[in-house]
């Protein structure tokens, strides 16, 4: 792996901890030092646990300390998940054997093995999931608690399924531990980057065309599913966005935009900008490996590179995290990617679903309008 100046994306350990901490009833233990604990703990604002290893345990073995912590937590939690960090992962201790007397999940996802998504998916893969064969419910996938849109996306997906009369199955990853024992055989996602492979994937709720296709896929599987409500809503949303976008284009040129996010979110942002504002996407940078995208994407995780791209291309609009905002200069900015700091976010804003499309387009238009007004004043 090449060196990276000012890396902007978390490691596999953070991804694994994020996935596991989404399930109530599971105690998540970071098997490592306090340094490895503090970052996910501050990011997630969630009760996490740690073995808080010290040097002498690296020399003499970590088993005694690990058993001490897991034994204590086993009294109050239904399940304990142990996530391995870099140093204990190379000590050669058989963690499963050490903890054989306890009801644990062991995730070997040290930071050097990869980035956030690989840790998240590896943790989900090792969850004690019991798949139902029935198609009476649909799981929701792609909820990631460090995502500023997680709460909104979940609510929006639940609302859309309710609108179709379809019961919700397990929510990956924001549900109870018990929900894993009866996972549905069908799934929809609000973030295709984090598709778990549990249940047949019926599609995504990210973007209007995806919502439409997914709704029809669901209807194919559920004879009682109702698509008319969603169809009406899609028409209304498209009309409202088109009207607002047309008004903007009457006065201003389409924006040039640079997007920096995860693969699915970048693709979503690029599509909406091109479709409604005929925007010129001058750069589409992705944090994770670009698997699918409607826009040619480049993997970039260094803030130094991001800064030089923004300086060179001077886009009207920058979409990304607070890292990008700090180097966006005078450009309009919209937060899409975690972390989004330096602003209050109290409501459950979605990105997925029809409300997500409306909300994101609203942010784009307002940011671009402000930018154009600032330009006029100058």
């Amino acid at each position: 792996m090449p060196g990276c100046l000012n890396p902007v994306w978390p490691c596999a350990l953070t991804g694994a901890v994020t996935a596991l901490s989404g399930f109530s009833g599971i105690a998540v233990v970071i098997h490592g030092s306090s340094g490895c604990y503090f970052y996910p703990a501050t990011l997630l604002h969630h009760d996490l646990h740690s073995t808080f290893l010290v040097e002498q345990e690296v020399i003499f073995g970590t088993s005694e300390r690990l058993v001490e912590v897991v034994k204590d937590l086993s009294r109050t939690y239904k399940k304990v998940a142990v996530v391995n960090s870099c140093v204990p992962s190379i000590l050669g201790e058989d963690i499963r054997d050490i903890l054989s007397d306890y009801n644990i999940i062991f995730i070997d996802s040290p930071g050097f093995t990869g980035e956030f998504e690989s840790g998240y998916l590896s943790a989900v893969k090792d969850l004690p999931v019991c798949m139902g064969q029935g198609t009476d419910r649909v799981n929701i996938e792609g909820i990631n608690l460090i995502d500023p849109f997680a709460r909104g996306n979940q609510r929006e997906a639940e609302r859309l399924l309710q609108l179709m009369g379809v019961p919700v199955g397990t929510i990956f990853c924001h549900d109870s531990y018990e929900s894993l024992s009866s996972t549905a055989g069908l799934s929809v996602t609000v973030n295709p980057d984090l598709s778990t492979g549990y249940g047949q994937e019926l599609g995504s709720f990210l973007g209007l065309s995806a919502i439409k296709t997914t709704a029809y896929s669901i209807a194919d599987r559920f004879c009682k599913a109702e698509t008319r409500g969603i169809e009406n809503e899609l028409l209304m949303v498209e009309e409202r966005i088109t009207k607002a976008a047309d008004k903007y284009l009457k006065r201003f040129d389409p924006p040039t935009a640079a997007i920096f996010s995860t693969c699915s979110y970048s693709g979503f942002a690029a599509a909406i900008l091109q479709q409604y504002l005929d925007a010129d996407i001058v750069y589409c940078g992705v944090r994770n490996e670009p698997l699918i995208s409607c826009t040619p994407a480049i993997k970039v995780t260094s803030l130094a590179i991001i800064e030089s791209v923004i300086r060179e291309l001077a886009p009207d609009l920058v979409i990304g995290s607070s890292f990008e905002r700090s180097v966006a200069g005078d450009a309009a900015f919209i937060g899409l990617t975690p972390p989004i700091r330096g602003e209050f976010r109290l409501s459950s804003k979605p990105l997925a679903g029809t409300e997500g499309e409306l909300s994101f387009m609203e942010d784009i238009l307002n940011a671009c309008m402000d930018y154009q007004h600032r330009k006029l004043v100058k």
Partner: protein
Amino acid sequence: MSLNPLPLSISRTGGCTLTGALSVTTGINDSVTIIHGPAGCAHHNFSLLHATILDNDCHIIPKVMSSGVSEHDVIFGGEEALMRAIMEVSSGDPGIIFVLSTCITETIGDDVLTVTQNAGVPVCMVPTGGFIGGDFEKGFSSALIAVSNLALPVHPTPSCNQQVRGSVNLIGEKNLEYEVEQNFLEVKRLVSLLDLTINLRFAHNITRSDINRLPLASLNILREPALSGVGDHLQSMFGTPYISSFPLGISGTLSFVRNVAVRSGLSPDEAFDSEKEHQEEIFEGFSDLREALVRLTIPAENPEYPLIKEISRAIGLRESPDGTVLPVPYPFPVGTSGIKRMLHLWRRTLTCRAA
């Protein structure tokens, strides 16, 4: 949660040496700090630093490079990855390159010192080693000592002597704390009562060449007593005496003024009286709080207890088991200005309770 007995000097929750060391090295604006480890370690720390600079309205983004140690490097050794990172960074001609090792590269046995010595470019290695090397405080002290070793030896000149008599250094400001600038301004105000200036904020918002000014002050003022090892090191290197802490509390602030004067060979009387008068004026402004019932929840053995008690008495508050619990910010407010800000907080707390 039960905790295994550990030697008294070891804390399980003391944080990572990397964070402590980075809070120093990134205070040198033209530096690049290479973290020899997986990208995640650099991201965790960079993200924390970035959040802090956003909070403090600072627009200089520190440069933190990861050597990007991968699974392959963990198996076959990460020294090549470190050398590549040093070469890449040196091509940008930074003021100084720092290298910090992580727990994983320490465990696999990478010889970081040798790599930095063979790099062919000046590199300052800070002994860290993630949690293998200690905790946040250890990384912080180690970095201050390593960076101080970059200062040139002193060759006194007439202009240099002039500076020696008239200035102080601030050593080890907590760059990650929210009120770092307010604390600096308060110490600057207090030493200015003695006509002293700040020679160097070591290491806050400075450049590599500024470090050469480190030996030129007449006195070093440490941020907190935990940095006494750094104070001793600077005294042995440059002969500069030190005061072990920023001023805390009412009498503590007055003692601070007196100590700075005495250590700088100045008369403290005028500055002392002026600060005492300033404090009394401030307390008068909070006379509406007199006789308010309060409760101190800080244990008596806590070093902050006498400071709070002293302030509470100066305002005329009355302790009672039914009184309002007074909030005490962490870290404890610095100087008289810090006390004033805390008193506003207390007034809000007492007023809210009354409402």
